[in-house]
């Protein structure tokens, strides 16, 4: 409420007992970055419960087809793969609910944490990242940054309205610390290295 805005700001101004403190300069902490970021990414992704698919030089989409083992609609948000469903301008967020597998491309990856970044540009409809039962993700290995400091230097953060790091599948351990994948979001998350054309 408008009166509260002024009241809160006034109280803050009156209560600055700490004096002005300097803003620290945050380094990138990337001096020790390994040459092979792909290997580090894979290790971190697996630690977070994700899976890496083995690339196929002859038939690049074969690993995706092989990863689809359950019946149910497959939604593709990438030109490289033909699914049963496509996003149209009429698609509503709840229309994604019946999807078994969604095939997406990540904007970039983070080796430190095995994270994949998606914005509305890759998701098309934001719920494609969360309502399907399983995700299969294409990641261009040249788009892997070393750590989170490097990740926040990327342009996506000031271009997109929505951006998310997904690091493995949905997980919970709220009952006696037992790890369960697929608490609310996706039950599994697989990644295939696939250069963007």
């Amino acid at each position, binding site marked *: *409420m*408008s009166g*509260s*805005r002024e009241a*809160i*700001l006034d*109280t*803050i101004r*009156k*209560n*600055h*007992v*700490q004096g*002005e*403190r300097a*803003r*620290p300069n*945050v380094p990138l902490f990337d001096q020790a970055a390994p040459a092979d970021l792909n290997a580090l990414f894979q290790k*971190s992704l697996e*630690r*977070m*419960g994700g899976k890496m698919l083995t690339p196929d030089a002859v038939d690049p989409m074969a690993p995706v087809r092989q990863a689809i083992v359950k019946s149910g609609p497959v939604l593709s948000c990438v030109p490289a793969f033909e699914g049963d469903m496509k996003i149209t301008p009429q698609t509503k967020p*709840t229309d994604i*609910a019946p999807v078994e597998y969604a095939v997406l491309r990540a904007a970039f990856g983070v080796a*430190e*944490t*095995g*994270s994949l970044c998606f914005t509305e540009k890759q998701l098309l409809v*934001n719920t494609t*990242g969360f309502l399907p039962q399983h995700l299969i993700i294409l990641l261009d290995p040249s788009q892997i940054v070393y*750590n*989170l*400091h490097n990740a926040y230097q990327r342009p996506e*953060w*000031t271009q997109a*309205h*929505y*951006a*998310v*790091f*997904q*690091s493995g599948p*949905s*997980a*919970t*351990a*709220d*009952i*006696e*610390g*037992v*790890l*369960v*994948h*697929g*608490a*609310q*979001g996706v*039950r*599994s998350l697989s990644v295939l290295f696939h250069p963007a054309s």
Partner: protein
Amino acid sequence: MTAELHEELTDPHADQLDHGAASSRPLKSRISEPQPRGAKIHGNRPVDQSEAANRFMAATEHEAMHDARLWDLRQKRDKEMHGIEEWEELRNLASGIKEHTLSKLDYYLELFEKNATANGIKVHWAKDGAENNAIVLEILRSRGVERLIKSKSMLTEECGFREFMAENNVEVIETDLGERIQQLDDEAPSHVVVPAVHKLRTDVASVFAKTIGSDPDNADAHYLTECQREATRPLILSAQAGMTGGNFVVAETGTFVVCTNEGNADLSANTPPLHIASIGIEKLIPGLDDLAVFIRLLSRSALGSPITQYTSHFRGPRKGSEMHVVLVDNGRSARLGMEKFWPGLKCIRCGACMNTCPVFRRSGGLSYGATYAGPIGLIIDPTFNVHKYRNLPYSSTMNGSCTNVCPVKINIHEQIADWRRTLAGEGEISPVKKVMMKAAGEVLASPVVYRASLPLGRSALRHLPHFMLYNKLNTWGRKRDIPETPKQTFNEWYRKNRKQQDEGKKS
């Protein structure tokens, strides 16, 4: 309810993983036992934490599981810490960034408001919990919302948000599993990160059997989680609005960030056409460089996991939808002016201080009878109500472990001591403590009386019947035994062994 068990749930590979809140080793309750309930609340009367703690400790299976589970999280945190060479530097940076932001909080709040508004977010200001609730209700009513899906937020716990919405006929569905368990059991969260950590699997089975129709005899964690997923999914799809909190608010980009392991915040925010976020004003940080520091520290400190499964950044509404942010004060601007206690505002709600605290691990979060439990609760709760929470600063061994693990370097144990002094100065001290303090004060004030009392005390410790030391007045003695008392005081030993020697040296 028969839940469809998916093969991912029984993936043997998953047993070797310990990301998220998972235990690093199998911990399983062996027996079922009635769940001890939290502190008894009597209006504004001081909460008796030790009474509730006694009942928790009497439930031995609950106490043992709780202790083991949280200590395991603390050990996972240590392992992560050792994997990051710059850990201490990150803690220093996090502390410095928070102190800088708090010292210019008015500037950063206005900067966030300007940038978020430019991106299409509607920003509201609430001076307290009641005003937050009223603002949110007004938004919901004007759009005919009857069902709201929500991710976990400690701020809404502060505001009594769920109770208020229930009175106003808005159905609120918590989507974090732990928080949903607590909602269905009509109980507050006991921990800021793992809200149902005080419950055994059998407790959850009994709550779900009563509320969502699961099999009362099946207490398997996979089965129970799956039942909850199946019961919640239709509610997510039919809700007209979604609500989240915010872990961090980035002023320079007008972004707010939400961290979850279940993806429930993303579902709550992205499925319905309306997203409301209520966020405390202390969550501000300047820019994205700063955000990196906190994302690296948060989940590692909380759960010993490198990052939360989902780290979600909201900077504006998606096409055809609305986004609102309510900036909530609720006592924070006043706390900013408290010379000794303002650093408590640096807290990022990771819960590391709870996991490491021997009192918290053995007494359970609900024994504190307040929104915030554990060490951070001891120094925050009295700022909300000094009389009601006057006993809490005594629920500490003062071992300082909370301060050592805090990712933003809050001097928690020093603030606990400062609260004890402040409360005594304000006359907020229980009658029992008053009598004991007076006696101790008289003895400590005179060196002669003090020295004379020591051999007496030593002999008393050795010869007094156990019930004299371990009685109701001495809450410290519960679940502890005193170390064996030495045969002589230090002064006696010194006179006998060293005094002549030392005096010889001087001459």
